[in-house]
């Protein structure tokens, strides 16, 4: 029983990270219908930036976190303004390739700037744990779960109660109509990119103490894809549920299935779900009227 609880807890924490990355995909997809294959690499940049401030420049953890999030968010907005805006309306294929290319550039940049070694990020939560009954609650995992919950609540409030948030929803529902209503759609899109990049950076910093930082940290994005698709690519709660599901499946597969299943369990589930419900669990399928 304790083992199962422990697995559930760890799965939740890992799943939250997947969920956050998936949330980044979904935000951008909902707004601009671009699929950002570089989301995982933005996460990697966030983790590295925070590491740089903490270890190289001796900034405190919280200040470094804020700085990293701000820098990566600005970078995301600049990315949209300079590059991704040009491919709007192009076939989806072009966008996929473009963001894959961008991801490769980011990894290259990280390997040149920070080197290709593996780093650990010291945090206030490192190597501390609370015992609850038979379950060990590591503070790193706890920080991930709490961080995710807080972030999601903030995002939910932002999209529901602020004017900008509602304008973003409008822009994502119908771009042309939003233009007619006087919404600055381009600025909205840049803002969405900034938010999505910021979410990725936060996920990166939260993940950093659990998994070590190296330039291939971004490949976690592949699993987050599974999470996003599982939740139906355009649904924000779906992304989180998908992420947690993938996290739980992965840990249980690692514990109870033969060696090797842990890494592919997420993808097997993804293929099964897609074969049965091609638009994901939470996705809505519509049909174009001709």
């Amino acid at each position, binding site marked *: 029983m304790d083992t199962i609880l422990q697995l559930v807890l760890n799965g939740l924490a890992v799943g939250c990270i997947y969920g956050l990355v998936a949330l980044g995909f979904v935000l951008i*997809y909902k707004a*601009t*219908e671009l*699929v950002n294959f570089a989301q995982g690499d933005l996460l990697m940049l966030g983790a590295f930036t925070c590491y740089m401030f903490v270890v190289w420049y001796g900034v405190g953890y919280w200040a470094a976190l804020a700085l990293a999030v701000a820098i990566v968010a600005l970078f995301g907005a600049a990315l949209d303004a300079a*590059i991704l805006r*040009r*491919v*709007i*309306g*192009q076939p*989806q*294929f*072009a966008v*996929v*390739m*473009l963001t*894959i*290319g*961008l*991801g*490769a*550039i980011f*990894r*290259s*940049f*990280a*390997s*040149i700037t920070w080197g*290709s070694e593996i780093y650990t990020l010291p945090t206030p939560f490192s190597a501390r744990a609370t015992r609850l009954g038979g379950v060990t609650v590591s503070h790193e995992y706890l920080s991930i779960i709490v961080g995710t919950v807080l972030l999601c609540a903030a995002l939910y409030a932002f999209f529901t109660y602020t004017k900008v948030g509602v304008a973003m929803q409008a822009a994502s529902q119908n*771009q*042309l109509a939003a233009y007619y209503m006087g919404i600055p759609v381009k600025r909205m899109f840049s803002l969405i990119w900034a938010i999505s990049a910021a979410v990725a950076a936060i996920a990166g910093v939260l993940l950093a103490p659990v998994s070590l930082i190296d*330039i291939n940290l971004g490949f976690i994005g*592949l699993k987050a*894809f*599974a999470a996003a*698709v599982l939740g139906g*690519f*355009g649904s924000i709660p779906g992304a989180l549920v998908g992420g947690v599901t993938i996290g739980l499946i992965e840990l249980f597969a690692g514990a109870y299935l033969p060696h*090797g299943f842990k*890494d*592919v369990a997420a*993808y*097997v589930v*993804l*293929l099964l779900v*897609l*074969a049965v419900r*091609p*638009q*994901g669990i939470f996705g809505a*399928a*519509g*049909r*174009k*009227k*001709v």
Partner: protein
Amino acid sequence: MRFLFKTSYAQELGLFRDNVQRNWYVALFAALLVLPRVVPDYVGDISLVFIYGLCGLSLMVLAGYTGLVSLGHAAFLGVGAYAHVYFVHDLGLPWIVSAALACVLTAAAGVLVGLPALRMTGVYLTIATLAFALIIQEVFSRWDRVTGGLKGKPVDKPVLFGVSFAHDVAFYFLCLAFLIGALWLTANLLKAPTGRAWVAIRDSEIAAQSMGVNLALYKTMAFAYSAALMGLAGALFAHKIGFLAPDIFSVLLSIQLLLMVVVGGLGSLHGAVYGAVFVAILPVLISQARDSVPAWQGLDRFVKQPGLEPGLFGLILVLFILFEPLGIYGRWLKIKIYFSLFPLYKRATFRRQKTYMRSERLR
């Protein structure tokens, strides 16, 4: 400027546009025949270009002509390679039989991926193929008995009908023959109803469906054909690299294959070949350029970092998508039209229209 006046339907279906074009291809073929004598040092590299050409052709059929983007083609290449090596080495089948079986097997794998893919569109399909590739890669590293697992599997030189193709020049001609065969088959297929249906599906699924194209059938066919070509490429690739290991067939290889068709030019067979040449030559060019960078301000140390190369690939991809979405073939068309219309060429001929986001959420 030359105008083509067609007088029969057979002309429309012919492999070449006119005699001039045919003569150019004959000249190219003759040049390829004497090439090993001219540049004997590069024969091995050129046969790799041919194998890449097969891969490019395979992806071109799927992504360029049918509009189904796959991020999992490295897995098909791997299935082809491992299956072929298993049949030849472990079961002792003749080369041709084994290569054919490898093609059939990869085609079956293609159908397997293609079937659920029929109901998905756009990004879902891309991600599903990606997931498939990641699973297959894990299978390669776990199924020791067949694939040799992480230790890898050595591959002998090919022997066809008792004739050894161990020599580089012989292997060059083997690859060339398969590439020409595949190009011929694909070019004809694209002019037949099958190819027309594929292009119709790419341009609009709904329109194709209303014209009576069976979407499920043709999409599966595209997947199977593309995978079979990849299987053939895999069989040759196995002999070319001489050693199979699971980490060769990674997502990065899939991306590189896609890079090939994008850079070459989507939607043209020429593009597949141009892309293959580009992808094979680029690493050579990069390494030569690196050696010639002067040691100024530590610049030479900067460009010699190992992490730089994938970034350069990424940069090239980004630049192509932003500035030349039709790839090398598109640029070639523009240059050709510039000269054939000289002094009347207008940039606006190829200008992209301003677009706004059109939802693909509704299928």
